[in-house]
C-alpha cells in the first residue's frame, strides 16, 4: 500500500511566468503612447502626460473599488452620481464648519466624505445582497437617488467651496510631492492597497471565490452576503477618496458632476482584463485601463483628424479595437 501513496514530484510552479492576457492592457497602453507620439510629438510632453494621468486619477481610484465589486460578481452603476453626492455633502459640511474650525474643516470634511461613501456603499451592498436585486437595477435605482439628492442640495445649481478654504485645499489636486502630482500619488496608494487586499488577504480570496461560484463559496463557509456587501463598501470608500481629490479641482459640486463616470469606470475595469461575470480582478490592469481611456480622449483633441461631431465615434472604435487586440493577442 505504501508504494501507492508515493507521489511523483510535481513540477515546480512557475510563479512569475509571463502571460500575454495579463500584459494586454499594458501593451495597449504602450501602443497608444506610440500612436500618440506619431500623431503629435507634444503628446509625450511631461506636462501633457502628467495632466492626463492626473485626470485619470478619479476614474482609476473609483475603478479600483469597482474591481472588487465586479470580481465579487456585482456591478455598480451609481458611482458617478455617488461622487457628486459625496462631493456635495463634503463641501456643505466644510463650509458649515469653516467659521468654527478654520482650516481644520478640510480634514473634518474629508472624514465626513469617507463616512458618507461607506454608508452609500453599504446601502448599495445591502440592497443587492440582502434584497437579492440584480446589481444592475439596484444601482441604477441608487444612481437616480444620489443624482436627485445632489440636484436637490444644489437647487440644480452649484455648491462652491468656501473662499477661505479654497486655497488651502487646492494642492490636493494641483499640488505635487517630489514632482509627482498628488492625485497620482493618491491613486497609486489606493491601487497598492487594493492590490494588497485583493491578492494578499483572505478577504481578497473570498471576494474572488464568491464571484467565481457562489455555491462553492457558501459550501466553504464563506458568507456571500457579507463578502459582496464589503466589496460595495470598499467601492463606496474609493468613491469618497475620488471625491476628496475632485473637490479642489473646480471647487464646487454640481448636478452634472461625475455624470457617466460609471460607464468609464466599468470600461476601465473591463479593458484592464477583469471579466464582468466575476471571479478574477486585475487591479493593475484596471489602472492601465483608466489611463488608456483618458489618453484616448486626449489624443482626440491633440490630433486634427476628426470632426468634433465624430469624436465619440472614434473613441468607440478605438476601445473596440483595443479589446479586439487584447482578445486575439492571447
Amino acid at each position, binding site marked *: *500500500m505504501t*508504494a*501507492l*501513496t508515493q*507521489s*511523483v514530484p*510535481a*513540477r*515546480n*510552479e*512557475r510563479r512569475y511566468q509571463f502571460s500575454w492576457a495579463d500584459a494586454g492592457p499594458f501593451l495597449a497602453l504602450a501602443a497608444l503612447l506610440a500612436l500618440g507620439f506619431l500623431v503629435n510629438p507634444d503628446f509625450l510632453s511631461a506636462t501633457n502626460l502628467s495632466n492626463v494621468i492626473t485626470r485619470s486619477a478619479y476614474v482609476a481610484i473609483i475603478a479600483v473599488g469597482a474591481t472588487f465589486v465586479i470580481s465579487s460578481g456585482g456591478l455598480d452603476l451609481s458611482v458617478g452620481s455617488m461622487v457628486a453626492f459625496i462631493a456635495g455633502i463634503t463641501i456643505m459640511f466644510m463650509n458649515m464648519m469653516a467659521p468654527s474650525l478654520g482650516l481644520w474643516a478640510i480634514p473634518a470634511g474629508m472624514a465626513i466624505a469617507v463616512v458618507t461613501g461607506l454608508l452609500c456603499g453599504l446601502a448599495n451592498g445591502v440592497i443587492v445582497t440582502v434584497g437579492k436585486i440584480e446589481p444592475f437595477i439596484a444601482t441604477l435605482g441608487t444612481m437616480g437617488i444620489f443624482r436627485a439628492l445632489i440636484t436637490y442640495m444644489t437647487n440644480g445649481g452649484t455648491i462652491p467651496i468656501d473662499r477661505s478654504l479654497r486655497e488651502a485645499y487646492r494642492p490636493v489636486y494641483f499640488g505635487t510631492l517630489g514632482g509627482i502630482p498628488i492625485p497620482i500619488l493618491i491613486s497609486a496608494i489606493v491601487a497598492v492597497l487594493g492590490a494588497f487586499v485583493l491578492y*494578499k*488577504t*483572505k*478577504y*481578497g*480570496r*473570498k471576494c*474572488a*471565490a464568491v464571484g*467565481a*461560484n457562489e*455555491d*462553492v*463559496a*457558501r*459550501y*466553504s*463557509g*464563506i*458568507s456571500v452576503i457579507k463578502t459582496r456587501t464589503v466589496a460595495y463598501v470598499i467601492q463606496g470608500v474609493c468613491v469618497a477618496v475620488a471625491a476628496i481629490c475632485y473637490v479642489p479641482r473646480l471647487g464646487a459640486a454640481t448636478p452634472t458632476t461625475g455624470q457617466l463616470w460609471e460607464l468609464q469606470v466599468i470600461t476601465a475595469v473591463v479593458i484592464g482584463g477583469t471579466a464582468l461575470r466575476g*471571479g*478574477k480582478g486585475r487591479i493593475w490592469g484596471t489602472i492601465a485601463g483608466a489611463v488608456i481611456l483618458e489618453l484616448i480622449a486626449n489624443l482626440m483633441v491633440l490630433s486634427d483628424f476628426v470632426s468634433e461631431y465624430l469624436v465619440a465615434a472614434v473613441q468607440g472604435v478605438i476601445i473596440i479595437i483595443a479589446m479586439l487586440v487584447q482578445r486575439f493577442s492571447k
Partner: protein
Amino acid sequence: MSIAARIDTDRFAAPGDALPVAPVLRAEGVSKQYGTVTVLSDVTLDILPGEIHAVIGENGAGKSTFMRLLSGYIEPTQGALSMAGQRVRFTRPDQAQAAGIALVHQEILLAEALTVTDNLFLGRELTKGGMVDDARMRRLAAAKLAELGCEVPATALVHDISLADRQMVQIARALLDEHRVVIFDEPTAVLTGGEIERLLAIIFELKARGIAVLYISHRLDEVQRLADKVTVLRDGKMVGTYPGHTLSQIDMARLMVGRELAALYPQKQATRTNQPMLSVLNAMVPGFVRDVSFSAHKGEILGFAGMIGAGRTELFEGILGLRPGTATVELNGAPIRIRSQREALDAGIAYLTEDRKGKGLLLQERLGPNLTLSALASFHPGLVVKRAREAEALGQAVSTYDIRLKSLGARAGQLSGGNQQKLLLAKVLLTDPSVVIIDEPTRGIDIANKAQIYGFIQDLVRQGKACIVISSEMQELVGICDRIIVMREGRISGEVSGETMTESQIALLATSERAHVAQGGMK
C-alpha cells in the same frame, strides 16, 4: 510494471486471430497532449457492434479524455478514428452524434435554467408546422424517463432536481435517438441500487439491438457483470484488452494499478465509544425531510443509506444551514445553533458535498486557493494569505491523498474527476473538524484510492472524531461503518449494526412500504 507485464503474457494473451465482425468504431494510435503534457498516448481500440466494452483505469488514467476524443469533444493530437472502415474526423460533438456516437458525460452537462424536456431535446427539438411541439416532446421525455425509472417531472427545471436525477436526465438525453455507439463515462457514480439495475438492463437491451457500448466505471462488479471485453488504461497508455468474463475483480485492480493490492476494506477498529458527539433532534427540511433524530458517537463511523431521493443530502444541508430547515443540534452535549456553513465549521463540523464540480471546487482556480478556501480563518491567522504555507500544505495534501497531477500550477478543473474528489477531501479536512460528514466519499474514485480513503476515514475516528458517511454504495457502508441509519422518503426507516448489518437488510429498509409512505405525500 513488471507484474502487469507478467499478467499480460501469462494469462490474458490477446487472441490475435481475425475479428469475426467489422468494428463499428476504431481508434488507431490516438494521442492527446495538452501543451507539453501527454494525457493519452497511442491508444488503439476496436469497438464491435453488439458488444459491451469496458474501459477501466485509475483516476487520471485518461479514460474520460479518450471518450471525449471518440465523441468529438476534443480532437486527438495524433492518430485517427474510423467508422466502418471509413476515416472520420469530428471537430464538434454534434458531428459525432450525427454519425451515431453518443456520450453520457462523467460530469453533468445540462443547462440548469431550462426544463428537463428542453435539455433532452436541446439542439434537436421536434417541430410541427414550424413550431416546437412541446406537448409531444414532453410526452416522449416523460416516457423515456419512466423507462429509466426516473421520477422527475419532465417540466421540472434542471436547477431544481437532484444530482442523481440530473444524471438520469443525461442518460435519457443520450438514449433518446438511435445510436450506433453509446459511451457511458461513469454513469453509475451518482446512482443507487434501483437506478443502477435499471441502467444495466437497458445496456443489455442496447447490446441485444446490436449497438456497441463503451462503459467506464470504477465499480468493478458492474464491469464484471457487463463487459464482453475490458480495456485497461494506465497513465494514458494501453495496458491491454482482455475478454471480460475471465477477468476477476482482483485481476482488474491489479492490471489498473500495476502492482499487488491490499484488501479493499480495512479491518474494523473498535474505536467506537458511547459518548454522543453530534446529536440531532427533530430535523425538518421542508419538502425533503421530516422529523429525523439521530446521534453520532465519538470514534464512530456512522453510515446513512437510502435510495435516491431519500433526502440524506438535504437532511445534512438543512442541519448545516445550507438550505432552509430546522433542527435541534447538540455537539458534545452542548446545544449549538448553526445558521450557516461558517458556524458549522467554527463549531467543528465539516461537510463534504456530493457535487464537487458545482459546490465543492472553484474549477477555474489553482489548487492552493481551493485547498485553503474553507480553512481561510484557521489556516491563515491574521489578515494575509500565507502563500508559502499554502504551497507547503498543498504539497502535503498531494502526497497524503495521492492526488495525481501534472503540475502544481494546474487549475482544479484540469484534474481528473477522482483527483478532484481527493482534493476536496483534503480541503475539508484542512479545517480540522471534530465531526466529519462525507457525502458520497468515493464517488468516481478508483479501487486503489477507495481503499486509501477508507483508511483516511478510519484515521479520523481513531483520532476521536465522529465520522458520518452518506453513500449510495451499500457494500461500502457495510464494509466500513459501525452502524448504518437507513432513510426512506425523508424519514429514518431503520437502523442496522453488527449482525443485522447486511446489504439485503438495508435494501429492505430502504424500499419497503415505499408506496405506502409515498401516499402520505411529502410535498
